[in-house]
């Protein structure tokens, strides 16, 4: 197939100065801004994690006031979910989806600009919600955890109001971004490209976008009801006024459970490209993979109350949520098998993105196993709110979401920057970060099973060894990201020139229009629709 490279010379130059970024409607520039934003927030959220782990290095109180500790736990989660994984995945969607499907840009470029620029505003609000506690008279810090459960979240101070507005901005931003992505996928494909021809990453974002449109408004509605309860005399969540705090839990998890698929799916999409590329074989079972994601989309929306087994639901409801949750491991397991079969008898090479992909398959499956343990009601009554849950979801989210995005970063850096990254440093980063991750979170399974509760600043001395291993691992994990940053900066600044298609397996089994463009691609690409084979 042929690529577009030399049409519309007249406005191929990006505008100069800050206007290029502030007023940008260009999918590549907006993608870059999303990615840079995510990287900055990664260090902010990471710094909070370092403080948390420093505090937990020893039992007793070391450096943090208990409420401040819990506020950091709250903000760490919100930043990592909304400030890192979602923006990074949206950045990749912006950069890659139009190029993959042969579109000149996103469907709604001005809305795209607004989706991004709401994020820095949200970040400022979030940081002020943390800092406002240092002004006397503003009440208790937001010590609720990211789940923001009432009644506590109705009682805490001004920080909570700022956090509610933060969630509003984040919600508007990601709903608009999702609408844009879904519309782009439906309407902007190059003539002749059918939905079933799209690279898996595009499909993954299609479902992610639809999920977000359905769930983000529920969270926004839920926190708005909190705001009403706090200030306007309603009692949605107050039993004394005829309301019910459990209603908030249902609203939160109706958002919260599908949200984990929002975080997971874009990375599954990346794996769907990386694994065939470095196995030099077409994806095994492309169509089933699309269907599995569809099943995940549907099941994901109807199993939320497995986070609430301990609230005293009816037996029928409990059984329903348990069975539904266990069923989810079927499509997830099948996806993993498809990836393994893709590698089977391929001529594999182990560049950094592929190393991440293989490690993800191993470590993410582990999270699937602990997930099924947690799904079983009588077992979860023991595990709930212990470090076992913390271990489960860090194994799900760091390999399942974060490492998938790292694989994407290494896979596409040559395309984005026009330079190859330093493969040796990439591999060092992979081993360093993977070992440190396991050192941090593996011991938490044991402390959790032994009964160490989550979200508490202090712990019994019996847990001291596990926590010290965790903390040392965490510092090593944090430190490895300085190398990550260095690799990225080095690649942006220079390095071996990347060809249009730096990976020889890259187009196997997909149209892969992005690889027909030079690296880096011109400011405007596919202004005339490309012709497919």
């Amino acid at each position, binding site marked *: 197939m042929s690529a577009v490279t030399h049409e519309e010379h007249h406005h191929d130059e990006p505008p100069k100065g800050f206007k290029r970024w502030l007023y940008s409607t260009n999918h590549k520039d907006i993608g870059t801004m999303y990615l840079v934003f995510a990287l900055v927030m990664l260090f902010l959220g990471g710094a909070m994690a370092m403080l948390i782990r420093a505090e937990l290095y020893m039992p007793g109180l070391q450096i943090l006031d208990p409420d401040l500790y819990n506020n950091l736990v709250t903000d760490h989660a919100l930043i990592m979910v909304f400030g890192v994984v979602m923006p990074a995945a949206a950045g990749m969607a912006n950069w890659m989806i139009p190029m993959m499907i042969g579109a000149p840009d996103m469907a709604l470029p001005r809305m795209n600009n607004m989706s991004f620029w709401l994020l820095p505003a949200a970040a400022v609000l979030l940081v002020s919600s943390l800092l406002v506690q240092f002004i006397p008279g503003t009440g208790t810090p937001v010590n609720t955890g990211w789940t923001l459960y009432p009644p506590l979240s109705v009682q805490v101070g001004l920080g909570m109001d700022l956090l509610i507005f933060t969630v509003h901005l984040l919600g508007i931003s990601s709903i608009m971004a999702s609408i844009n992505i879904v519309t782009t996928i439906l309407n*902007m494909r190059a003539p002749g490209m059918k939905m079933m021809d799209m690279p898996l990453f595009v499909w993954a974002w299609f479902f992610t976008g639809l999920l977000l449109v359905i*769930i983000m408004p529920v969270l926004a509605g839920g926190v708005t009801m909190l705001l009403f309860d706090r200030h306007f005399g309603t009692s949605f969540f107050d039993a004394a006024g*005829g309301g019910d705090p459990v209603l908030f839990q249902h609203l939160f998890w109706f958002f919260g459970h599908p949200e984990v698929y929002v975080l997971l799916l874009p990375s599954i999409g990346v794996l769907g490209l990386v694994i065939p590329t470095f196995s030099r074989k077409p994806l095994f079972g492309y169509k089933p993979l699309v269907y599995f994601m569809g099943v995940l989309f549907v099941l994901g929306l109807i199993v939320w109350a497995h986070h609430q087994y301990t609230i005293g639901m009816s037996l029928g409801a409990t059984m329903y949520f348990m069975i539904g949750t266990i069923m989810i491991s079927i499509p997830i397991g099948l996806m993993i098998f498809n990836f393994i079969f893709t590698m089977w008898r391929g001529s594999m090479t182990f560049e950094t993105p592929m190393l991440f992909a293989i490690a993800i398959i191993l470590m993410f499956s582990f999270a699937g196993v602990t997930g099924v343990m947690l799904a079983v009601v009588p077992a979860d009554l023991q595990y709930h709110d212990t470090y076992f849950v913390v271990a489960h979801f860090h194994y799900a989210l760091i390999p399942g979401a974060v490492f998938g995005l790292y694989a994407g970063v290494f896979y596409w850096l040559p395309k984005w920057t026009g330079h190859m990254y330093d493969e040796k440093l990439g591999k060092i980063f992979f081993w360093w970060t993977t070992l440190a991750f396991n050192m941090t979170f593996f011991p938490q399974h044991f402390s959790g099973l032994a009964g160490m509760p989550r979200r508490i600043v202090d712990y019994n001395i019996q847990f001291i060894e596990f926590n010290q291993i965790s903390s040392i691992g965490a510092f090593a994990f944090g430190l490895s990201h300085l190398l990550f940053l260095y690799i990225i900066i080095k690649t942006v600044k220079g390095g071996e020139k990347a060809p249009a298609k730096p990976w020889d397996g890259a187009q196997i089994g997909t149209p892969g229009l992005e690889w027909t463009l030079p690296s880096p691609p011109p400011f405007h690409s596919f202004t005339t629709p490309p012709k497919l084979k």
Partner: protein
Amino acid sequence: MNENNEIEKKDMTKANIWIAVALGIIALTVAITPFFYLNNAVITG
């Protein structure tokens, strides 16, 4: 693009806006649904 390969550009603006509006309406509907739990949840006294 090679001259002979050009495919006519279609203007998708309208279709794009319609899909966006439809999805936006879905989002707004979902957002207000929880508030209908209001029934007797407002302190009247």
